[in-house]
């Protein structure tokens, strides 16, 4: 019929497409082979440039060809004058732009662009920035472009506040964007370098410490300013289930890093032993630790509390026999951490069997490091707005978690009850992570108990019936003599437990402990109460054999008690035990 439209059948279309593809492939393969052979022969001419361009524009992820291209360009640099080179590189940039249009996420193209930009005799950074902006406006999460942009910004020295404005814009168009939030978190410290003096006097360490070295500084910024802008609050009120803003918020509030230092030196006359605790895990064998006793440097061998640790916050060493054993002598001990130019003194007076020198957890406000030390009023108002959100969204996990963290930063003991209630809700609404919340809650409970112990100035750590699932902060318990962990949900006493160097009595009834790995070389341990746990084999008890003073052991209600000849086996394994309950 005249004028009617006939349409090719799918078979015809397929056939045409196939032919088209074949033709393309042929051309492609021929060009590729030509390139390879040229490169082999070391020819760096314009034709090669043409060929690679042709290939790369259809496949920009061909790294070898980019390399070849760079070789050619570097060669051309040596033979042409600056204006020509500029021209060549500009042409290269516009070629790259066409590649990026085809594939905006090609590693090869972006890398090459970076390379070209850096070699361009007269770079036009403004143009590069606008290219990035265009690219990011099409896809605000193109990390290749983000990377390239960072390079451009660095090379061209764009002012930080301008960049901050740029992130504002991107976050404004879509705030579910880790790239933008993250970029902010790198810009803010640049805009507000650490203040020379910490804002609150109570933060001043009680001892005179040398000025913090660049690595140990703790950034403290005027977060109030950025909280007032409420950008991040807008984000999580708008969509409280979007995590990117919450993460950024945590970062914003939690900038304090702990100062690196020796937090405690303990010396025991009986064991002729010194224990040193650091503010973070270190490898004492390689950090230049120097022990000076009464003015004499000592050759000692530092070892961590458990052979499993190469890095540990607690290290011990034995003094040469007889150096401090005479109780009528007074000794002065200094531990130098030469690498950090810091040290700590400790005096062992006449008639004393042990001595220590330390900053307590309360002095250091250790457990506030999760969220920073900023003025209470700021945190208080943040807590208020989070509570407001929580009223609207009672089951939002991010909100609950942030409230918990804010409460901890403000007053860990005062808010203990609320914190526990929130943890309970969290476990219910986010049951997939209930174990995580359990562990986090345990951590906070331990922190609270440590604080209480510090306030009471005792060496007894008692935390029974608190649903503990894990143990942490054990380095803070270096001086504890009596620990009560009864009626919790512990499954093991981990290797870190060996940091309790002064421990005499261990109560851990009614848990689910299967493993005693951490009860290892505890020189003063006399009593171990493990009623109703899950210790099932004699091998599990093996670590106890390393504790020389162990006298009393309660194993009632453990599967191991059903073992044949248990008493004789135990007598052999633990000869020092005189009071055994099975």
């Amino acid at each position, binding site marked *: 019929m005249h004028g009617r439209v006939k349409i090719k059948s799918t078979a015809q279309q397929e056939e045409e497409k196939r032919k088209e593809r074949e033709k393309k492939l042929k051309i492609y393969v021929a060009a590729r082979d030509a390139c390879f052979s040229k490169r082999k022969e070391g020819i760096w001419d314009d034709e090669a440039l043409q060929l690679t361009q042709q290939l790369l524009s259809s496949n920009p992820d061909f790294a070898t060809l980019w390399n070849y291209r760079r070789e050619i360009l570097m060669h051309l640099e040596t033979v042409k004058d600056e204006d020509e080179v500029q021209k060549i590189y500009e042409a290269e940039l516009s070629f790259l732009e066409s590649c990026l249009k085809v594939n905006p*996420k090609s590693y090869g193209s972006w890398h090459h662009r970076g390379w070209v930009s850096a070699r361009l005799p007269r770079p036009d950074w403004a143009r590069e920035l606008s290219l990035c902006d265009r690219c990011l406006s099409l896809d605000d999460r193109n*990390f290749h472009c983000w990377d390239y942009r960072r390079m451009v910004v660095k090379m061209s020295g764009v002012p930080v506040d301008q960049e901050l404005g740029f992130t504002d814009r991107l976050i404004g168009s879509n705030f579910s964007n880790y*790239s933008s939030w993250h970029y902010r978190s790198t810009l803010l410290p640049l805009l507000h370098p650490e203040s020379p003096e910490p804002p609150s006097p109570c933060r001043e360490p009680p001892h005179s410490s040398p000025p913090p070295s660049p690595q140990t500084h703790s950034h403290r910024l005027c977060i109030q300013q950025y909280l007032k802008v*409420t950008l991040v609050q807008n984000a999580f009120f708008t969509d409280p289930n979007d995590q990117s803003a919450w993460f950024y918020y945590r970062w914003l509030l939690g900038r304090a890093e702990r100062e690196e230092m020796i937090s405690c030196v303990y010396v025991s006359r009986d064991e002729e032993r010194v224990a040193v605790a650091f503010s973070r895990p270190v490898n004492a064998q390689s950090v230049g630790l120097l022990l000076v006793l009464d003015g004499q440097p000592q050759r000692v061998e530092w070892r961590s509390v458990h052979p499993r640790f190469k890095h540990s916050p607690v290290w011990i060493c034995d003094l040469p026999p007889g150096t401090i054993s005479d109780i009528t002598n007074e000794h002065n001990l200094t531990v130098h951490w030469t690498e950090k130019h810091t040290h700590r003194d400790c005096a062992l007076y006449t008639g004393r069997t042990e001595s220590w020198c330390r900053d307590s957890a309360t002095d250091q406000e250790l457990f506030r490091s999760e969220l920073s030390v900023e003025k209470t009023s700021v945190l208080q108002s943040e807590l208020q707005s989070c509570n407001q959100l929580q009223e609207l969204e009672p089951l939002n996990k991010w909100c609950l978690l942030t409230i918990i963290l804010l409460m901890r930063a403000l007053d860990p003991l005062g808010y203990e009850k609320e914190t526990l209630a929130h943890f309970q809700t969290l476990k219910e609404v986010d049951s997939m992570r209930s174990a995580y919340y359990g562990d986090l809650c345990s951590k906070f409970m331990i922190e609270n108990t440590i604080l209480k112990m510090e306030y009471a100035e005792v060496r007894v750590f008692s935390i029974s019936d608190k649903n503990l699932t894990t143990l942490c902060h054990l380095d803070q318990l270096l001086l504890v003599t009596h620990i009560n962990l009864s009626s919790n949900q512990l499954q093991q006493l981990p290797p870190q437990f060996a940091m309790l160097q002064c421990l005499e009595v261990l109560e851990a009834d009614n848990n689910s402990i299967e493993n005693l790995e951490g009860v290892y070389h505890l020189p003063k341990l006399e009593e171990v109460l493990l009623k109703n746990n899950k210790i099932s084999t004699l091998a599990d008890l093996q670590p106890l054999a390393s504790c020389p003073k162990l006298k009393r052991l309660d194993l009632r209600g453990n599967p191991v008690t059903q073992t044949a000849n248990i008493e004789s086996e135990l007598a052999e394994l633990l000869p020092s035990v005189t009071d055994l309950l099975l």
Partner: protein
Amino acid sequence: MAAEDLPSEFDVVILGTGLTESVAAAAFSRVGQRVLHVDRRSYYAGNWASFTFSGLLTWIQQHHEEPLPEEAQDWSSLLEEGEELIHLSHSDCASIRNLQVFCFTSEEDEEEEAPNTTEEETGGAAEDSECADSTEEETKETGEEEEEVREEEEVREEEQTTPSAALRQSEPTKKKISYAQLLKEGRRFNIDLVSKLMYSRGSLVDLLIKSNVSRYAEFKNVTRILTYRDRQVEQVPCSRADVFASRQLSVVEKRKLMRFLTSCVEETEEQRAYNGRPYLEFLRDRQLGDNLQHFLLHSIAMVTEDTPTEEGLASTRHFLRCLGRYGNTPFLFPVYGLGEIPQCFCRMCAVFGGIYCLRHSVDGVVVDRDSNRCKAVIDSRGQRITCSHFVVEEGYVAADRKRVATPTRFLSRAVLITDGSILPSDSDQQVSMVTVPPIAAGCPAVKMVELCSSTMTCMPGTYLVHLTCQSVGSAYEDLSPVVTRMFRTPESHDQETCPSVLWCLYFNMTDGSGLEAEGHNLPSNVYVCSGPDGDLGHELAIRQAESIFQKILPEEDFCPPAPNPEDIIYDGDNTSSSAGGEEEKEENDGVAEEEKQEEEKEMLEEEKEMLEEEKEMLEEEKEMLEEEKEVLEEQNLQTEE
């Protein structure tokens, strides 16, 4: 137009090139039906058309002129035994009335500019429109209006000689664009007779995509939703990004709004409990506060205070579903104006062999008395054209033959050319949808669309503002109070900050939704299409076109995807080279002259469209690919151990 006769046999003859007729034409042609598509007017799209400024002036002029007396020609010689003729109407004026034009800018581009006063004139105009309101004979009405236009001109002349001193003081430093400039730059205007927006998940967009007709046009996002409240224009935060960025909402309001919008998406028992009760009540009980309630009722649901909850929720959902598909608002607007859309469908029809004639009408329908079916039509040149089906725009059908809602429903329309945006922002290229709730009890709610020059509908430096509402009185009575409040006109007071109206047009148009679907006194194979309705979207027209198509061809697919041009085989008289295709088009010379140029444009536009589609796909992919990096940065942010 071809001088020779048209082919004498078609499957479907379609009269009128409005949206409904054009969509139907494309659908028929696409599945191989022989289509003749004619329009009495010299332009496409009928009441859906867009005009340049001078084109609009001509259109206004035409509606002022006395129509030629309807001489019913005697075609009885063309009839056979047992046939009778139904005459179709020639008149164009029934659907448009109460036309009023005001010019508030100076005639000439002068150095020392004279401010304008037209107060006298508007007083007169109001009277005029009252007279014109009663549906008298066309002749009288148009006569009066002509008078008015003359009067207006006089006033304008007057202005130049006696500028008002009081207004001169308040003259802004910015130089006003003169009427002469508007005329000079008139080609930059594309002024729509109807004001609608395309819901990004509405049936029109779906159809454009499904049929590949989208390749013939380009679209822009409506960039913001505004509302008029407490004598102020405010931005309505409706998308997630808007809510985030909004400065007027407190964080708690943000949460409440987001929560409401999220909860709306699914129907709940709680919502069902409100069925039959007003949406306003439902909103009130959600304790959202006045701000949010206003936004949700007027700007998002776009309903009135007494709309039932289920209806309010349904339109809220529709709004939300349309969000984010193409941008931050649910709406698209075609570049070069809405008049493009019917033309795109005509183009599609022509590509598949449909024959087009403008300035060519159908005088009468030949009906077989026994079967009461249309056998043929007689065109305006007296050619008898056999057809199996006849589709006609309602304007051609005499009033006694069609069934419409009584009293006749009208839309009130105003078109303003202004010198500034109603809510200035960083960018002067905003496309805004503005909802204006009734300014007083008994007043209609007004929908307003403000177009910037990048939509290619107005000259740079101006904005084109469309106002639409259901008529209560004349367009002037309904809309001028809103215009006076929101813009600076000679009648407004203390509105220095508002944009000035340079030129404006008021008119009423028949509301197409008044046409009944069934029950016309017409043969069973004659189908009537309604003109534009008052809804913001295009649902009615598309639904109507589809239902006509399905009545005629129940087995066929409605507008299946058009093949790519390279897959079309052109055979027949010419060689099957692709160049032959173009020639053959010329041969089918029923196609109007513009058609050829359009075909050329086609290729370019196709490319554009394809690129855009690819971009869309890429964007989707991107998100998936992102995760790696995201995880890394997440770790960096995380302060946990």
